[in-house]
């Protein structure tokens, strides 16, 4: 599949939560080829501030209209600048990049979607595809957590996803109080709910993904985790986006996978979790509130 360099135009910009913005972009070349779980490298503005492109997942793909949607959290100078753009403004994109999610062939499988914070972004398109078409998955639940209620998408928007949603916040300001993976673990262990997902799809901070991976490996579930890394190029040239692979390279050496090329979607078993170094610490919330 060919990568495209395209100048997209912003069609619409909505602020969905204090720090969360949704952009609808006209990008015919990219939307025609895009798949759920893939991403674009986006230049938030011309010039050197910031210098590098930023990776964003497809939140929704509308190939019929030549449009894509991006959902992002204001996390630093790049996303702050991006949040100030509006309809008509051009942004340069490279995409579609990465491998993307694979939906289960057997559409009756029980599946769980787990999102931490802005990890909800790529799950938008994935859930839409999973729930559409013939033989629609009957048993799909979304587990969606964040640090606090203000960092969640509004409930009415999430309810439009069309599946059962379980909310969690670290501070208990909305839904379950605690980690979303804890909520997930407790829920799947409940006798009164017949939910034993054979496949989990998740996106969120690496610390969350670690818990998802652990659950998947312990429960023999298939897993597709959308992982993050700092990216220089997004297309496999800089080798900046490495994560430690579970298997070794030649000799007994550590081997690395590259999130932009080999991912961003990985199975739980393909990563050497106890060798992962924190890619970055999330900036403290007080910086942006």
């Amino acid at each position, binding site marked *: 599949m*060919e*990568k*495209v*360099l395209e100048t997209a135009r912003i069609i619409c910009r909505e602020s969905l939560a204090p720090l969360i913005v949704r952009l609808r972009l006209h990008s015919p070349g990219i939307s025609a080829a895009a798949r759920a779980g893939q991403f674009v490298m986006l*230049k938030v503005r011309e010039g*050197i*501030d*910031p*210098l*590098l*492109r930023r990776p964003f997942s497809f939140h929704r793909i509308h190939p019929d209209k030549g449009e894509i949607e991006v959902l992002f959290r204001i996390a630093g100078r790049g996303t702050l600048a991006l949040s100030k753009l509006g309809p008509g403004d051009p942004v*340069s994109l*490279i995409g579609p990049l990465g491998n993307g999610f694979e939906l289960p062939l057997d559409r009756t499988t029980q599946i769980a979607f787990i999102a931490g914070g802005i990890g909800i972004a790529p799950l938008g398109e994935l859930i839409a595809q999973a729930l559409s078409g013939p033989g629609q998955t009957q048993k799909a639940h979304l587990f969606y957590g964040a640090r606090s209620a203000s960092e969640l998408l509004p409930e009415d928007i999430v309810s439009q996803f069309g599946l059962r949603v379980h909310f969690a916040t670290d501070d208990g300001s909305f839904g379950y109080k605690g980690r979303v993976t804890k909520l997930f673990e407790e829920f799947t262990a409940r006798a009164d709910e017949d939910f034993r997902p054979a496949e989990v799809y998740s996106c969120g901070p690496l610390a969350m993904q670690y818990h998802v991976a652990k659950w998947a490996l312990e429960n023999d579930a298939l897993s597709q985790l959308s992982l993050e*890394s*700092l*990216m*220089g*190029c*997004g*297309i*496999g*040239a*800089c*080798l*900046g*986006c*490495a*994560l*430690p692979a579970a298997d070794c*390279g*030649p000799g007994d*050496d*550590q*081997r*690395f996978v590259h999130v932009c090329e080999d991912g961003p979607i990985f199975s739980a078993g393909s990563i050497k979790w106890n*060798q992962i*170094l*924190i*890619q*970055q*610490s999330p*900036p*403290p919330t007080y910086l942006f509130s």
Partner: protein
Amino acid sequence: MEPNPDPTIAAPDLSVQLGPLHLKNPVMTASGTFGYGEEYASLTDLGKLGALVVKGISLLPRAGNPPPRIVETPAGMINAIGLENVGVEVFLSVKLPYLCGLDVPVIANIFGNTIEEYAGLAERLDGAPGLTAMEINVSCPNVKEGGMVFGTDPAMTAKVVEAVRRKTSLPLITKLTPNVTSIAEIARAAEGAGSDILSCINTVAAMAVDVYSKRPRLANIFGGLSGPAIRPIALRCVYEVTRAVKCPVIGIGGIASAADALEFMLIGARAVQVGTANFVDPTITAEIIEGIRLFLEAEKIAALSDFIGTLDTSCLFPFAEDACGSIEI
């Protein structure tokens, strides 16, 4: 060939001669910033490049440093990839054959942790079909001598270059590090040891930390700064090197436009390499080549070689009745 009747309408000649190396235009990709070419093939026409320098190659494959490996900085980025690469055998069997199919000179960038490794690599690569030249990356620690970086010492630099020189008759480029008191001294050592061409600069030693997690932003703590931020440093280095040696010099560091590339050539670089800017705009090398052409046309310069090294420092542009004559609006 008929001489062109009106030379002002002839397309300017962009070709450059660097010692034994002839290039159709002066714009190359810098090692480590363009993979093995393939990665960019669907985004830009590789055949337009003056040359393609591939990711640094070692004798054995290398896994590289643990992540985080990169961090953005003002007008730049720091990388600590740790020279991850597929190793010379995969390069020869998989990567080079792909590139041979394209119409672009391929330059291998080589590095080692001992002089023997450098020599071994050169021997293995010498005569490989489709390989146009070799670039020696001397910004690597010498494991046998306490980990000091080869390229920070004139004698060690000379030893590496000599060892490689003995194993190959391909055009040889030595890539200099800016992290030294006198880059001119290292340049002279490399030239003296038989390097046909010098390229500079490699990245500038740098680091970044995060005050919230209280941790380095790179697992390796240190890394190399690249991008527009270092361009003024690179220009100064290239200036010093071009004045210190007779052999041709390739300018590298923060080049992101035709004007940037022309600055290096104005002070005497015979060609340039574009690094970090590829990440921002994969078509940038093609744009730079086109921009150089437009510049030469607008300034009515028939050949790029007429422009190279024409920096005017002798006359410090006084006004009026002085040596330089008066300057009209």
